[in-house]
C-alpha cells in the first residue's frame, strides 16, 4: 500500500473542499495526487491494496454527523443517509414492512461482517468486480488501456460477465443492492463541488461503458452523495428479490432480479423489473414490464416476460448459461408476487 494522509472530515462542506478526484478518475488517469472519499472503505482499500490507485489523501466521510440517519414517512417515503450501513437497512423494521425486495437484496449482499462496514453510498459507488479490471497486470479499457480482456474469443474468462449491453466493456456493476433500488425507482441526492444539491433517478446515476468507458456513475470530483430516497410503494404493491450465486455461503451475483408490482385484484396494474449482473449497469426490463400490464401473473405470463427480457441477450463465449438462469429467475421472482 502506498502512503497517504488521512483527512477526518467534520462536515459535508469540509469534505467537498478536500476532495479533488474520484476513484474512477485516478484509475483512468493516475496522478498520484488524488484525494478521494472513503466511507466504509472496503472498495477503496481493496483498490489501494491491489495497486490500482495510489491516493495522496483519503477524505474520511464516515463520521460526518447526519449522514447516518434513516427515516420513513408514508408521504415522503424512505430516506437513507449515505453512511447508513447495509446491516442497518437489513434490520430496519420499516424496510422489512414496506420494502420487501430491498430487505431481501441487502440481506443477500456480501457477508455479515462486510454488511456491518459497508455504507449504502459506498456500495452504489463501488467499482466493477471484473477480474481483469481488478488486476493491475491487465490494462483494460476502463483503466485507459486499449481492449476488454474479458470479451476475447480466445482467452476471455467471461463466465460472470454481461449478456446485455455488452458491445463495449463487458463488466458487470458490482452492487446487487442497486438492483432492488432500481426496481423501487429510488433516487440519489448528492452535493456537487460547489455545494449545490442534485437529485437524480438511480437509473440516470449509473453510466454504461458505451456512454463513458472510464466511469460507472455520474459522480465528478467533489460530488458527495448525502442521501438515497425511495418512494413509498402505493397500496397493493408487492415486491420480491432473487439472487443466484455459485456457493451456498455468500457470493457475488450471477443473476439477480427485483420486481415491484402494484396489483389490482390478480391483475398487474404497474410493474418494474430490474436485472442485476446482466449488463454493465443495473437495467430495467421495460419490454417485459409492458408485456405484463393488465395481465394476470401466472406461469405462462411470467415465462413470456422472461423471454421478452432475454430477447436481446448476446452471451459471450462462456456465459451462455446466464440466459436460462435469468429466464428462471425472472419467472421465480414474478410468481412470488402473483
Amino acid at each position: 500500500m502506498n502512503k497517504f494522509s488521512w483527512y477526518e472530515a467534520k462536515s459535508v462542506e469540509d469534505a467537498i473542499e478536500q476532495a479533488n478526484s474520484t476513484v474512477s478518475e485516478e484509475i483512468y488517469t493516475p496522478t498520484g495526487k488524488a484525494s478521494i472519499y472513503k466511507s466504509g472503505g472496503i472498495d477503496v482499500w481493496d483498490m489501494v491494496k491491489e495497486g490500482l490507485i495510489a491516493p495522496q489523501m483519503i477524505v474520511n466521510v464516515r463520521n460526518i454527523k447526519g449522514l447516518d440517519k434513516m427515516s420513513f414517512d408514508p408521504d415522503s417515503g424512505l430516506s437513507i443517509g449515505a453512511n447508513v450501513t447495509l446491516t442497518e437497512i437489513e434490520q430496519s423494521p420499516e424496510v422489512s414492512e414496506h420494502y420487501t425486495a430491498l430487505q431481501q437484496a441487502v440481506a443477500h449482499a456480501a457477508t455479515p461482517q462486510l454488511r456491518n462496514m459497508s455504507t449504502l453510498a459506498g456500495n452504489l459507488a463501488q467499482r466493477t468486480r471484473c477480474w481483469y479490471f481488478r488486476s493491475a497486470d491487465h490494462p483494460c479499457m476502463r483503466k485507459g488501456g486499449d481492449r476488454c480482456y474479458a470479451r476475447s474469443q480466445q482467452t476471455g474468462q467471461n463466465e460472470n460477465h454481461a449478456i446485455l449491453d455488452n458491445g463495449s466493456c463487458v463488466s458487470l456493476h458490482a452492487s446487487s443492492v442497486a438492483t432492488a433500488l432500481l426496481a423501487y425507482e429510488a433516487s440519489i441526492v448528492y452535493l456537487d463541488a460547489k455545494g449545490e444539491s442534485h437529485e437524480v433517478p438511480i437509473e440516470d446515476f449509473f453510466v454504461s461503458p458505451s456512454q463513458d468507458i472510464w466511469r460507472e456513475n455520474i459522480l465528478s470530483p467533489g460530488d458527495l452523495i448525502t442521501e438515497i430516497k425511495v418512494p413509498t410503494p402505493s397500496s397493493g404493491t408487492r415486491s420480491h428479490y432473487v439472487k443466484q450465486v455459485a456457493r451456498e455461503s455468500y457470493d457475488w451475483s450471477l443473476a439477480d432480479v427485483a420486481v415491484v408490482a402494484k396489483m389490482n385484484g390478480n391483475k398487474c396494474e404497474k410493474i418494474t423489473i430490474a436485472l442485476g449482473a446482466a449488463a454493465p449497469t443495473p437495467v430495467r426490463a421495460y419490454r417485459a414490464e409492458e408485456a405484463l400490464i393488465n395481465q394476470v401473473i401466472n406461469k405462462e405470463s411470467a415465462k413470456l416476460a422472461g423471454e421478452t427480457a432475454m430477447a436481446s441477450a448476446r452471451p459471450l463465449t462462456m456465459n451462455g448459461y446466464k440466459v436460462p438462469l435469468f429466464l428462471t429467475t425472472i419467472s421465480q421472482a414474478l410468481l412470488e408476487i402473483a
Partner: protein
Amino acid sequence: MKKNSKKSHAEGHSKGLSRRGFLRGAGLTTAGTVVFTTGVQAFEAHTQPAKGTSFGPGSIGIEMKVNGRMQSLTVEPRTTLATALRDHLSLTGTKVVCDRGSCSACTVFIDGKPVNACITMALDVGDREVITIEGIARNGELHPVQEAFIEHDASQCGYCTPGMVMSCVHLLENEENPSLEDVKAATRGNLCRCGTYPHVFKATLSAAEKMK
C-alpha cells in the same frame, strides 16, 4: 477550487514535536482518543475547530481499547487493524488469509459487531472497543464455543478457526436458541478450505445448549 488538499497537509507538517489531537470514533458521539505522541514524521492538525483534521502520512501515536485494556501504539494511516493487532500488539490470534474482506478469517468485534480487521484501518477504530479472539476466554476459562470446537473437532488447519469462533460467539451472544440455519447465516462469510463446516455447526448448536 478543490486542489488545495496537498497544500493543506504540507502546511501541517511539524518537526518531531509532541502533538495532541482527537479523532472521533466512527459513528460515535463521544470524543475519540487518538493521541499524537512522538515520531520523526509527526504531523500537525488543522487548528480551525470547524474544519476536519489531517493525519499522516507518517506515524501517529494512537490509543486503542483492545480486550478491555487501553493500548498505546504508533501506526500510519495505511496501517490496518489486523496489522496493528498482530504486529504492534502481538495479538496474533487474529489471522490474515485473503487480506481483502472475502474470507472473514480476520473477524474481530468493534463495539460488539463482527468486522474484518484486514480491511479496517486502525484509524477507523476511534474510541470504540476492539475484542479479538484473545478476549473471548474469561478468567482463564475458554468460552463455551471454544470448548465445543475442541470437543467436536471443528478445526483442521486452523486458519479460519479464530474468525469462525468470533462469528459463532457473536451469534450466541444475540440468540439463545439458534437454529441450524441461524448458524449457517452467521458463518456465511467465513470460508474454510478444510471443510469443517458440519463440525462448526454441531459445535455451535451444542455450545448454545450448554449456555442455557
